[in-house]
C-alpha cells in the first residue's frame, strides 16, 4: 500500500504540471499544434489513473488548453470527478474547469446535482463558495430548479462571504427557473438591508438587473431604494440604485419629481465622476419622463447640460465620450438646450478618437434644422475628404444621407443642393454605400417633381463621365449610382437637353464591364431615350436623318449586350434590338412611329411604400394557408427548391420596384386614385404644400427658373478644381435667404419698426431666426409613398420572443400564499404520492410559458395588512383550490414515468408537487384575496387584456386565455397521448365558464369542478367582473344551502353567513375567487340559489346592491378527468359491474376529434383508445364511480354507448352531453 503511494508520487514527478505545459508550448513555437496534441494524449493517460491529484493536474492543464481554443468537452466526466474530490484544492480546479467549459447541453451536468448540493451545505465556507461560483457559470434550468431551495437557505448563511454569493447567484437561478422568483423575493428584499455592505451591494445588484427588464414590478421598492440612496455611501451601490431609478421614472413620474432634488444635490456634492455621470443620466431620464408641462425644470436641464459640457471639454477622452453619449439623450426631448453647444460638438468631429467622432455624428443627426443643415453637411463633407479609413468615411457618408433624408427630407430647403451633394459623394472611391447614394438619387428624383430637370442634367453628366466612377468595378461599390443615373435619365428623358449624347454615353462598349443588373437598366433606359429622341425629331423633315441615325446607333451597339452572359441584359437587349430593327424599317418607309414607341413607356410612376405589400388586407374568405392543390407527397426538397426560386423572383422584382408600369390600369381609375391621393396629401401635415410664403418666393424670382443651372459647367469632369459645387448652392441659398429676409423685413418695417434688428443677423449666429422664416427654394412636391387601399395599420411587434427576461415579469408585490413561501423541496409527503408526479409535470410544463401567468398575477396585488388578517381564512380555501387545480389536469401515465425517472429518488420527486402547485394553481385560478385599487389602475391596460370579460361569451373565452388553454391543452394532449388520434386541426376555443348572473354593475361567470381529494367536495371558481365605472367593494357571496349541498364556511361562521369575497374591483377589472361546496349525493344535478351583495362606491356616494344567481351543479361537474390504460379499461368492462345506457345524436357535423375534445373538455373525460371513427373514453366521479363511453360516428350521427356503476349518474351525464351538442 505504502509502496503504491510512493510509486504514485514518483510518477507524479514526471507528469507535466500546468507550468511545464505552458513552458513546453512556449518552447515549441514552430510546432505548437503537434506539441499540444502529444500533451493531450498524455492528459488522456493521466485522466485514466485513479489518483485524484493526477486527474486534477490534468484537468488544470485542460483548462489552459481550453483557453487556447481546444475543445475539452470530452473530459467533462473527469471534470465532474475532480469537482467531487473532498480536497478543496482539487475541487476548486474541478469547478474552474467546469465553469469554463460546461454549458446547458453538457449532459454530465445532471450528474452534478447532488455533488453541488453537498458542497453547498459543506461546513467549509470555501467549498460552498467555490460551488456557488462554479454554479453561477453553468446553471441550467434543471439545476436551478433542484438547487433553488438550497441556495435560498444560503442567503441567510452566517458568513457574509456566502451570503453575498448566494444572493448574486439567485439572479441566474431566476433566469433559469422563473418560478423561484416570487418565493425568493422577500428574502432578497431583506438582504437590501443586510448589515454587511457586500451583501447589500449584491442584493442591489440583483434587484437592479431584475428591475431593468421588468421595471414596473419593482416600483413598490422605490421608497426602500430612496432610503438607501440617501443613506448609502458606497458608490457602487449608489450608481446601481441611481441607474435603477432611471429605469423606474418613466413609469412613475411622481418618483421623478421626488428624485430631482437629491440627485441635484449629489451632482453638486460628489467628487466621483462615475457617480456624477450616472446622476446626470438619471436626471435626464426624469426630465424626459416629465417632459410635458414642467417648465420649472429648465434649471435642471441647464445644470445637466452644463455638467456635460464640462465632461466634454475635459481632456480625458472617456469623460468626453460619456458626455456626448448623455448629451444625445437630452437631445431627444430638449434639442434647444443642446443645439446651443453645436460649436463644441462640431469640434469633437475633429477629435482623433473615432469613438468620439461617431458619438458626435450621432448628436449632429438630431441637431440639424432647416437653418443649419447646409452648414453642418458642408462641415461633414470636409471630413469626408479628410477621412482616411474607409469605415469612418462610410460612416460619415451614411450619416450625411441620414441627416438629409430624415423625416421625409424635412430639413432640406434646396434640393438642387442635395443632388449636388449626392453627386459629390460619388467621388468617394471604394465606398460600400454606392447603393445608398443611388437609392437617394432615385428617391429624390421620383418624389420631388420640381427637381427632375436638374437631377436629369446631373445624372447625364454622371453617365457621361462614367469612366471616372468605374475605375475598378471589382472593389468599387460606387458604380451602383450609375444604375440610378441611367434610370433617371431614361425615365425623365423629356428633361434632357441632349438625349442623343446621353444615349450615346449609355451605349459605350465600356458599359459591358458594369455589373449585370446595371447593364440591364442601361439597356432598358436606352430604349426610353430612343423613344424620346424619336419624338423630338419626328415630323421635322430635316431631323428625320437624326432619328434614323439614332436607330442605327442602337442597332450597332445593342448586339454587344445581346451577347451578355447576364440573362436579364441579354433578354432585354435582344428584345429591344428587334424592336429597333422593326422601327428602322418603318422609318425608311417614312411612317411616323414616335407616338407608338413613346406609348411603350407612358404612364407616371409613383413610389410604393416599402410595407405596402405587407399591408394589403387579406380579402374575406381567402385563407392563405390552405393548399390550392394537394401538396405532392414525398418531394419535399423539390418543393423547397421551387419555393426558394419563387422567393428569388419576388425579391428581384422588389429591388426594381420602380420599374413596373401601370399602363394597363385605365385612365379613369388612375385619375380617381390621384384625386384620392391629393385629398389625402392635403390633410397630411408632412406633405409640403405650396404655402403662400413659398408662392411669394416663387414670384420673387428665386424659383426654379432662377436657379442658374448654367453656372455649373457640366462639360468639365466632376471634380471641379477649387470650390466643390455644392458650395455654390450654399452661397446661393444664403443670398436667397438674405433677400427673403430683407423682403420680409421691409414689409415688417412698414408695420412695426422695432423688429428691425432681426434681419441683420448672419448665418452661424444661433440667432433668433425661426424655422418658419426659411422658405424652401422651390415648391417641393414630395410625393408620398403609395399604400394599398384599406391598408392595415399597426406594425409588427419587434420584441424578441426569446428574451429570457420575459419570464421574470412576475408580480412581486402580492404577498406569498402560505404554501408558496417555500420553493419546491424534494421531501416526503407520502399521502399524496399518488397524484403528485403529475403536478410536477405541471411545474415543468409551466416553464416555457410563464408569461401567461403574469397577467393573472398582476391583478392579484394585495394589501399586505389585510391579507395577513385574512390569510387564515383563505388558507384552507387555497389548499383546497390547489388540489382542485391539480386534479383538473389529466394525469398522463406515460409522462408521469418520464418525469419521475431522472432524479435519484422518486418519492422526493413526488413530494415536490404540493409545494410547487401553488404557483401553478394561483396562476391558473388566481386566488386573489385583495386587490389594491390604485396599483391595479396603474397596470390596467394589461390587466384588462388578460382578465376583462366581455359580454359576449366567445370574446370572453378568448381573453380568458389561461383557463381554456390549460383545459384544452389537457384535452388535446389526451387524445394524442392516450389514443391514436393525430390532431392536426386546431380545436375551437372552449371554456367551461358559464354565465352565472349579471346586472349593470357586475357580471359573474363560473366554472365548477370536482375535488379528487375529497369525494364530497366541489370547487366553484367565480370570476367577478366590474362592468360599471365605479369601485365595487365589500362583496359578499352567499348561498342558500340545501340538504345535499352546502357552502363551506370558515370555522365559527353561522350556517347562513355569506363569504366575503377577498378582493375589491376597480372599474373594468375582473378577478376570480373560489368557493368550496360539500355535496353528499352526486347522482342528481343540483341547483342552489344564492346572492351576491356588494357596495358600489362612487366619488361621493356608495350604494348597496345585490345580485341573485342560481348555481347549477351538473353531474358532469362531479366527474374528474382520469386517464385509464386500455387493458384496465377492458377489465373494467368485463367485470360486469357496470350498467349500460346509450344515446344517439343526430346531425352532428363536427370533425370527430373535435367532438371527442368537446366531450373531454366539457365533461371531463379522457380518451382511452381511438380507432378511426370510434373511441373509448373514461372518467371517474369524485366518489369513485367509473364511467365508460364508447363513441362512434357515422354520417353525422353519433352514437354513445355508456356504462357506469351508478345508472342515475350515467343518465344525467348523458343528458348533459346531449345538451352540450344541441347547443353547438
Amino acid at each position: 500500500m505504502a509502496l503504491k503511494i510512493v510509486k504514485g508520487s514518483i510518477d507524479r514527478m514526471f507528469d507535466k504540471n500546468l507550468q511545464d505545459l505552458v513552458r513546453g508550448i512556449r518552447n515549441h513555437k514552430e510546432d505548437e499544434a503537434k506539441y499540444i496534441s502529444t500533451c493531450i494524449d498524455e492528459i488522456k493517460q493521466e485522466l485514466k489513473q485513479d489518483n485524484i491529484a493526477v486527474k486534477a493536474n490534468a484537468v488544470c492543464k485542460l483548462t489552459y488548453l481550453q483557453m487556447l481554443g481546444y475543445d475539452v468537452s470530452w473530459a467533462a466526466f473527469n471534470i465532474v470527478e475532480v469537482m467531487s474530490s473532498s480536497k478543496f484544492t482539487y475541487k476548486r480546479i474541478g469547478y474552474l474547469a467546469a465553469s469554463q467549459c460546461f454549458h446547458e447541453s453538457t449532459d454530465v451536468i445532471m450528474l452534478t446535482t447532488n455533488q453541488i448540493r453537498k458542497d453547498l451545505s459543506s461546513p467549509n465556507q470555501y467549498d460552498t463558495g467555490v460551488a456557488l461560483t462554479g454554479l453561477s457559470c453553468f446553471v441550467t434550468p434543471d439545476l436551478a430548479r433542484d438547487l433553488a431551495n438550497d441556495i435560498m437557505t444560503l442567503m441567510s448563511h452566517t458568513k457574509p462571504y456566502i451570503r453575498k454569493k448566494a444572493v448574486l447567484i439567485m439572479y441566474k437561478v431566476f433566469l433559469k427557473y422563473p418560478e423561484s422568483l416570487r418565493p425568493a423575493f422577500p428574502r432578497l428584499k431583506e438582504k437590501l438591508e443586510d448589515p454587511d455592505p457586500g451583501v447589500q451591494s449584491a442584493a442591489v445588484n440583483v434587484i437592479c438587473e431584475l428591475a431593468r427588464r421588468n421595471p414596473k414590478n419593482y416600483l413598490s421598492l422605490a421608497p426602500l431604494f430612496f432610503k438607501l440612496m440617501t443613506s448609502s455611501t458606497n458608490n457602487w451601490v449608489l450608481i446601481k440604485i441611481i441607474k435603477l431609478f432611471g429605469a423606474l421614472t418613466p413609469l412613475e413620474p411622481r418618483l421623478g419629481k421626488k428624485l430631482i432634488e437629491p440627485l441635484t444635490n449629489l451632482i453638486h456634492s460628489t467628487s466621483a465622476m462615475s457617480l456624477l455621470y450616472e446622476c446626470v443620466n438619471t436626471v435626464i431620464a426624469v426630465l424626459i419622463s416629465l417632459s410635458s408641462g414642467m417648465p420649472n425644470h429648465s434649471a435642471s436641464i441647464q445644470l445637466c447640460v452644463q455638467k456635460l459640457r464640462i465632461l466634454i471639454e475635459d481632456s480625458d477622452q472617456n469623460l468626453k465620450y460619456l458626455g456626448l453619449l448623455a448629451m444625445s439623450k437630452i437631445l431627444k426631448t430638449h434639442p434647444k438646450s443642446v443645439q446651443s453647444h453645436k460649436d463644441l460638438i462640431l469640434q469633437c468631429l475633429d477629435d482623433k478618437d473615432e469613438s468620439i467622432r461617431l458619438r458626435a455624428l450621432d448628436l449632429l443627426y438630431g441637431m440639424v434644422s432647416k437653418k443649419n443643415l447646409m452648414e453642418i453637411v458642408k462641415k461633414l463633407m470636409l471630413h469626408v475628404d479628410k477621412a482616411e479609413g474607409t469605415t469612418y468615411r462610410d460612416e460619415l457618408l451614411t450619416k450625411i444621407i441620414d441627416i438629409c433624408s430624415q423625416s421625409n427630407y424635412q430639413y432640406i430647403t434646396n434640393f438642387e443642393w442635395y443632388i449636388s451633394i449626392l453627386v459629390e459623394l460619388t467621388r468617394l472611391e471604394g465606398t460600400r454605400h454606392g447603393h445608398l447614394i443611388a437609392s437617394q438619387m432615385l428617391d429624390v428624383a421620383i418624389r420631388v417633381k420640381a427637381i427632375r430637370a436638374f437631377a436629369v442634367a446631373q445624372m447625364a453628366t454622371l453617365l457621361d463621365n462614367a469612366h471616372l466612377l468605374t475605375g475598378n468595378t471589382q472593389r468599387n461599390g460606387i458604380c451602383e449610382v450609375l444604375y440610378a443615373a441611367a434610370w433617371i435619365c431614361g425615365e425623365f428623358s423629356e428633361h434632357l437637353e441632349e438625349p442623343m449624347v446621353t444615349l450615346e454615353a449609355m451605349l459605350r462598349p465600356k458599359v459591358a464591364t458594369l455589373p449585370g443588373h446595371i447593364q440591364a437598366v442601361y439597356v432598358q433606359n436606352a430604349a426610353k431615350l430612343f423613344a424620346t429622341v424619336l419624338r423630338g425629331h419626328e415630323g421635322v423633315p430635316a431631323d428625320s436623318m437624326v432619328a434614323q441615325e439614332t436607330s442605327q446607333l442602337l442597332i450597332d451597339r445593342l448586339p454587344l449586350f445581346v451577347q451578355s452572359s447576364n440573362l436579364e441584359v441579354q433578354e432585354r437587349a435582344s428584345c429591344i434590338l428587334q424592336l429597333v430593327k422593326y422601327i428602322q424599317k418603318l422609318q425608311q418607309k417614312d411612317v411616323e412611329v414616335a407616338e407608338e414607341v413613346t406609348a411603350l413607356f407612358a404612364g407616371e410612376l409613383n413610389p410604393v411604400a416599402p410595407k405596402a405589400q405587407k399591408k394589403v388586407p387579406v380579402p374575406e374568405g381567402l385563407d392563405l394557408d390552405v393548399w390550392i392543390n394537394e401538396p405532392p407527397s414525398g418531394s419535399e426538397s423539390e418543393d423547397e427548391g421551387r419555393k426558394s426560386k419563387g422567393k428569388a423572383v419576388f425579391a428581384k422584382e422588389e429591388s426594381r420596384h420602380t420599374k413596373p408600369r401601370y399602363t394597363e390600369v385605365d385612365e379613369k381609375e388612375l385619375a380617381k386614385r390621384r384625386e384620392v391621393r391629393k385629398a389625402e396629401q392635403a390633410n397630411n401635415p408632412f406633405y409640403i404644400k405650396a404655402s403662400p410664403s413659398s408662392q411669394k418666393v416663387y414670384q420673387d424670382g428665386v424659383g426654379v427658373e432662377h436657379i442658374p443651372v448654367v453656372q455649373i459647367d457640366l462639360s468639365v469632369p466632376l471634380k471641379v478644381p477649387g470650390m466643390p459645387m455644392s458650395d455654390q448652392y450654399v452661397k446661393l441659398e444664403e443670398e436667397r435667404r438674405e433677400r427673403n429676409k430683407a423682403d420680409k423685413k421691409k414689409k415688417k418695417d412698414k408695420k412695426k419698426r422695432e423688429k428691425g434688428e432681426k434681419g441683420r443677423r448672419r448665418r452661424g449666429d444661433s440667432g433668433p431666426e425661426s424655422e418658419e422664416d426659411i422658405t424652401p427654394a422651390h415648391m417641393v412636391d414630395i410625393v408620398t409613398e403609395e399604400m394599398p387601399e384599406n391598408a392595415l395599420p399597426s406594425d409588427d411587434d419587434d420584441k424578441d420572443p426569446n428574451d429570457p427576461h420575459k419570464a421574470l415579469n412576475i408580480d412581486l408585490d402580492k404577498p406569498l400564499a402560505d404554501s408558496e413561501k417555500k420553493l419546491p423541496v424534494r421531501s416526503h409527503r407520502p399521502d399524496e404520492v399518488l397524484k403528485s408526479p403529475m403536478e410536477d409535470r405541471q411545474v415543468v410544463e409551466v416553464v416555457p410559458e410563464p408569461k401567461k401567468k403574469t397577467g393573472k398575477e398582476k391583478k392579484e396585488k394585495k394589501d399586505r395588512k389585510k391579507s395577513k388578517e385574512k390569510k387564515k381564512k383563505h388558507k384552507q380555501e387555497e389548499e383546497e383550490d390547489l388540489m382542485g387545480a391539480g386534479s383538473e389536469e389529466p394525469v398522463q401515465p406515460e409522462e408521469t414515468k418520464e418525469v419521475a425517472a431522472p432524479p435519484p429518488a422518486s418519492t422526493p420527486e413526488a413530494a415536490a408537487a404540493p409545494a410547487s402547485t401553488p404557483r401553478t394553481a394561483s396562476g391558473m385560478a388566481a386566488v386573489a384575496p385583495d386587490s389594491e385599487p390604485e396599483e391595479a389602475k396603474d397596470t390596467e391596460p394589461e390587466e384588462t387584456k388578460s382578465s376583462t370579460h366581455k359580454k359576449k361569451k366567445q370574446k370572453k373565452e378568448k381573453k380568458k386565455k389561461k383557463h381554456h388553454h390549460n383545459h384544452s391543452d389537457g384535452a388535446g394532449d389526451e387524445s394524442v397521448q392516450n389514443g391514436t388520434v393525430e390532431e392536426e386541426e386546431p380545436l375551437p376555443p372552449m371554456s367551461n365558464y358559464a354565465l352565472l348572473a349579471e346586472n349593470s354593475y357586475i357580471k359573474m361567470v363560473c366554472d365548477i369542478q370536482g375535488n379528487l381529494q375529497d369525494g364530497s367536495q366541489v370547487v366553484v371558481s367565480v370570476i367577478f367582473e366590474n362592468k360599471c365605472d365605479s369601485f365595487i367593494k365589500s362583496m359578499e357571496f352567499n348561498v342558500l344551502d340545501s340538504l345535499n349541498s352546502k357552502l363551506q364556511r370558515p370555522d365559527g361562521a353561522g350556517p347562513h353567513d355569506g363569504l366575503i369575497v377577498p378582493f375589491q374591483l376597480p372599474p373594468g377589472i375582473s378577478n376570480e375567487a373560489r368557493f368550496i361546496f360539500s355535496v353528499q349525493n352526486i347522482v342528481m344535478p343540483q341547483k342552489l340559489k344564492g346572492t351576491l351583495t356588494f357596495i358600489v362606491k362612487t366619488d361621493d356616494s356608495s350604494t348597496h346592491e345585490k345580485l341573485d344567481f342560481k348555481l347549477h351543479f351538473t353531474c358532469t361537474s362531479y366527474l374528474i378527468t382520469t386517464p385509464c390504460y386500455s387493458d384496465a379499461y377492458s377489465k373494467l368492462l368485463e367485470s360486469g359491474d357496470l350498467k349500460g345506457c346509450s344515446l344517439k345524436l343526430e346531425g352532428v357535423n363536427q370533425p370527430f376529434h373535435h367532438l371527442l375534445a368537446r366531450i373531454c373538455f366539457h365533461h371531463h373525460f379522457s380518451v382511452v383508445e381511438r380507432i378511426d371513427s370510434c373511441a373509448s373514453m373514461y372518467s371517474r366521479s369524485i366518489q369513485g364511480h367509473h364511467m365508460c363511453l364508447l363513441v362512434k360516428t357515422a354520417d353525422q350521427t353519433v352514437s354513445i354507448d355508456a356504462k357506469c356503476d351508478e345508472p342515475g349518474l350515467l343518465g344525467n351525464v348523458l343528458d348533459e352531453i346531449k345538451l352540450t351538442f344541441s347547443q353547438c
Partner: protein
Amino acid sequence: MIKAILIFNNHGKPRLIRFYEYFAEDVQQQIIRETFHLVSKRDDNVCNFLEGGSLIGGSDYKLIYRHYATLYFVFCVDSSESELGILDLIQVFVETLDKCFENVCELDLIFHMDKVHFILQEVVMGGMVLETNMNEIVGQVELQNRMEKSEGGFSAAPARAVSAVKNINLPEMPRNINIGDINIKVPSLSPF
C-alpha cells in the same frame, strides 16, 4: 451584467478568458481575435470605450478596456453597468493581482492562469460584480490559498519552476498604475 472578460497581450495571445455566456471554443477564439483587432489599433490616449464588435455585439453592449504595459484587460458589458465603474473595477482587479503576485507581470498570468481565475472569481461572479473592496478580495484569496497549502498544495514543483522563470526579466507591469485619471473613489466598504 458583464458578458465576458478577456485578457490578452499586445500580440493578441489570450492570457485569460472568461465568458459568462456560452460560446463554442472556436467562436471564443474568433471573439478574441476580433476584439484584439479592435482594441489594438487604438492609441493609448483615446477613450477606453468601444462600441461594436459583431460577435459580442448587440447595441446594448460595449467593450471597456484598459491597457497596462503588455496586457489588455477587456470587459464586455451591457448598459446596466456604469462605464466608469467598470474602468475602476479593472483597476481594482489589476491592483489586486499586483498584491497577490507581488509586482505582477505578464509571466504571472501566463504561468498561473488558474490563480488569476481564482482571484477574478472573487471580483466577478457569473457576470455580476461581487466585490469591489480590494482588501476584502485579497483577504479571501489569501485565506483560500492558505487552505490549499494546509492540504499539501497542488504540487510543490510549480513553485520552484516559477521562481526560475521569474528570474527571466520580462517587461513588468507598471507598479503604480495611474489611478488619478478617473476620479472614482473606490467604495470604502467597512471590513467585516
